[in-house]
């Protein structure tokens, strides 16, 4: 169970939005993590390095937050490995097929009022809510 934290959510969200605006203004790129990561190895040579650096920044940013956080970060323990693996497969397959994830469709796409992103976000939100209900309340798996 977690507590509702509207202020840190808004501030964190605004930072994510700022990162997306800066990446579009400076690099001309959409800050969609699945799209950036999906072409790490397949993009043309000149198009690869910035992707690695963006993801490195992502890791460093979360690490920096953990360092500065007043309360120590407690990763989740005891979550079933089989669920993690299945979830990873589905997230990789689905985001590749849909051409985006929470950041690419959910933030950048909706900010541009893209009909495709609006539809995708509605569908993945509903699917995720239904899945969480099944996993937590019907099957009580985790």
């Amino acid at each position: 169970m977690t507590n509702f934290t509207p202020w840190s959510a808004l501030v964190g969200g605004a930072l994510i939005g700022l990162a997306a605006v800066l990446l579009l203004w400076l690099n001309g790129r959409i800050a969609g993590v699945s799209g950036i990561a999906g072409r790490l190895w397949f993009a043309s040579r000149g198009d690869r390095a910035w992707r690695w650096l963006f993801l490195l920044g992502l890791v460093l940013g979360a690490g920096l937050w953990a360092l500065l956080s007043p309360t120590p970060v407690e990763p989740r323990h005891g979550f079933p490995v089989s669920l993690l693996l299945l979830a990873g497969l589905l997230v990789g397959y689905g985001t590749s097929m849909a051409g985006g994830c929470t950041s690419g469709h959910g933030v950048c796409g909706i900010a541009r009022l893209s009909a495709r992103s609006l539809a995708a976000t509605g569908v993945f939100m509903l699917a995720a809510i239904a899945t969480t209900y099944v996993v937590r309340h019907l099957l009580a798996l985790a």
Partner: protein
Amino acid sequence: MDARVCASRAGLWTGLLCGLIFGLGLGVSQMVDPRKVLGFLDITGAWDASLMFVMGGALLVAAIGFRAVLRRPAPRFSERFHVSAAGSVDAPLLIGAALFGIGWGLAGYCPGPAIASLGFGNAEALCFLPAMVAGAGLQRWQARRRAMRPVAA
């Protein structure tokens, strides 16, 4: 050094900076914690609406900022904006989004937080991320095979 090489070098640093701000945002908003994400998705449990505020904050800034940025002729360090043209809603989009949603709801990770959480040594990411790469690889391979197969008469 010519201007294009200079611009592409600057683009590397700005890529790193944008990733850093993004990762910081995921940390501050606690979206790197899958319990927080599942607390939002579990609308019949003790609902935690935080994720909605994260998306709201991000959308507000991005919607205003994108509008200003896309009015410019070109980005600072690239020859053009790499933005996909408006397309129609099709089956791969909806099926892909549904599969992604199921995976997201199973464990509480979408790609950004899963990668970012490596920054504080999250062991779960070491299971989730290889599976995610495998899933994306499988989809690309299937799509390429389908594209190469001759159309049946």
